[in-house]
């Protein structure tokens, strides 16, 4: 840092549940110029809450209490209209920390996929999570990432759901079939696998869990060969905090809630 340069450090307070689910202390410690823990009893610039059912009401309360920024860890599908309205009214930055959709590789994956989506032949994607994971929550996380990468899905329908996972069917804009499968098993590390095939190649994406800075992989295959996009050794948690900082500094409103409203609508229609 250059001497004399101006910077803003935002103070942070997290609920215990959010602290654990979002590895908040680690993320904040990795951005020490931008964030720091709020001292006991002091007002915090940024509030962090867990996204369990009822989180939107808690978020509205935090905004009313003066939070400038809000991080929601693993938000469960819920109507966000009131929250979006409160956030706009108070100019509060609300970012969602989603296990896969917040991965920093998503942007590159989105560009790669959308440039090929018109030629898509099939999209096959599998989300794996440990035994005990609620398959509804897994599907919400899965769908959030897939829609983020591939865009809206049409004819979304749940074919099968149980203790061991789910099968969901949909189509892309060009009519190509989409299959989303959830597998609940301790056999492999939780991850999301996304494969779009075109007539002569495709895009393959693997997104890891945010518990470590394992890099996602985005591979583009075409007639000329295969290209691995640069790997990013940053977890979804940390990427979320970086985004928050950018919006706070710039005074802009992220599109997280807008996207989440569409996701919630899709999930609600499914179940």
């Amino acid at each position: 840092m250059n001497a004399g340069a101006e910077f803003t450090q935002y103070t942070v307070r997290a609920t215990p549940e959010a602290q654990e689910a979002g590895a908040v202390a680690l993320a904040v410690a990795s951005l020490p110029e931008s964030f720091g823990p709020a001292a006991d009893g002091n007002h915090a610039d940024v509030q962090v809450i867990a996204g369990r059912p009822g989180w939107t009401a808690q978020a509205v309360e935090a905004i009313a209490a003066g939070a400038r920024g809000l991080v929601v860890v693993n938000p469960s599908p819920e109507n966000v209209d009131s929250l979006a309205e409160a956030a706009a009214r108070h100019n509060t930055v609300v970012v969602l920390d989603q296990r896969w959709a917040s991965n920093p590789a998503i942007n590159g994956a989105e560009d790669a996929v959308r440039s090929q989506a018109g030629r898509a032949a099939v999209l096959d994607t599998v989300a794996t999570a440990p035994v005990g994971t609620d398959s509804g929550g897994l599907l919400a996380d899965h769908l959030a990432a897939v829609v983020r990468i591939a865009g809206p899905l049409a004819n979304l329908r749940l074919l099968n759901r149980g203790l061991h996972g789910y099968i969901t069917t949909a189509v892309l804009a060009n009519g190509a079939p989409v299959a989303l499968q959830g597998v609940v098993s301790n056999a492999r590390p939780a991850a999301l696998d996304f494969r779009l095939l075109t007539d002569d190649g495709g895009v393959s994406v693997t997104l890891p869990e945010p518990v470590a800075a394992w890099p996602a992989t985005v591979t583009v295959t075409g007639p000329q060969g295969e290209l691995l996009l640069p790997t990013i050794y940053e977890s979804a948690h940390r990427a979320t905090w970086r985004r928050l900082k950018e919006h706070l500094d710039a005074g802009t409103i992220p599109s997280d809630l807008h996207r989440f409203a569409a996701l919630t609508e899709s999930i609600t229609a499914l179940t």
Partner: protein
Amino acid sequence: MSSQPKAPQQALPTPIGVGILGAGPVTQAIHLPSLARLGEILTVRHIMDVDPAVAESVAARVGAAHSTSIDALLGDPAVEIVAICSPHQFHAEQVIAACRAGKKAVLCEKPFAMNAEEAAQISAVSQETGVPIIVGAMHTFDPGWLAAQENWDDLPETAHTIRSSIVLPPNARFEDFATEVITRPASGTPDYTDPEVIKGALRGGVMGLAIHDLPLIRRFTPDFKDIEVLEARHVRPFGYVISLRTPTRTIELRAAMNNTWKPEWSFEAFSDDAALRIDFTPSYVQAGSAVAAFTRGSQTTVHGPFDHNGYEGEWRELAALAAGTKQPPSAQTLIDDLTFALDIADATVANVESRHAVAEGAHA
């Protein structure tokens, strides 16, 4: 190929004679290259094809006799093992004829019959004549699959999720790596707006492509007789997305044949605490065996690759059967594999028909 006589320490057994019915690309690009690697135990004696020029040309490559009639091949005493590589609809009749001709073993390309009745007839003839039959489900002979079998503990009983995923370039890409093919079947441009075309493509996808791995899937599906198709969809230009379930299993079948250069052929099974993934090498090329990987949490155990693929494994098995050093698979296994495939193919077509009927109703 030079054949300078050597002076062996001990006399080697005479290679077992092979006759092949049908000399299309599979024979040219898969079986002959596999047999070329097994010259000490097997030798091609007779090639039959309905096209005399093809029969002659392919036979000349291996110094074998040639003909255009099944009777000529089956009547050739040099032929001890018969491989049936003709179009599907001839398989049952030709398997039965080969058994009746008193051959030592029969290899029939999949599917070995078009319905359960034919399969039962074949089984009865095989029992009556004592001629062992194996079906060319090459992955079941792949050393990678066999290594998995030796190490999978109770996974076939405890698995709850099974996936088969196949992404293949056009066959010609790999045929050309394997040999110099003469006469390829002509391909047309299907009308994908015609529901009958879609139904035909999906049935063909199950009986011609998925069938390679359905015996593997069945091995992990004890309640395979209660299979149900949840949804079947066509993938252009050729492929499928088929979701299935039994009372205890979720099964996903994926396939896409397109113009990619990058093949992928995998089988996966998951239980609560273990997963098996097998990556097979593409057909046609002699690229060694599949690799099987067991994952249990953070521990992964890998088996393979080994130096030969399932096609060569099939021929090794046939040689052992013909020599009487190995027992054939049970007829019930072959019948169950076939009826499992037929059930899925029928239910797939029925699923498409019912969706189409609903769509028609909606437009009425």
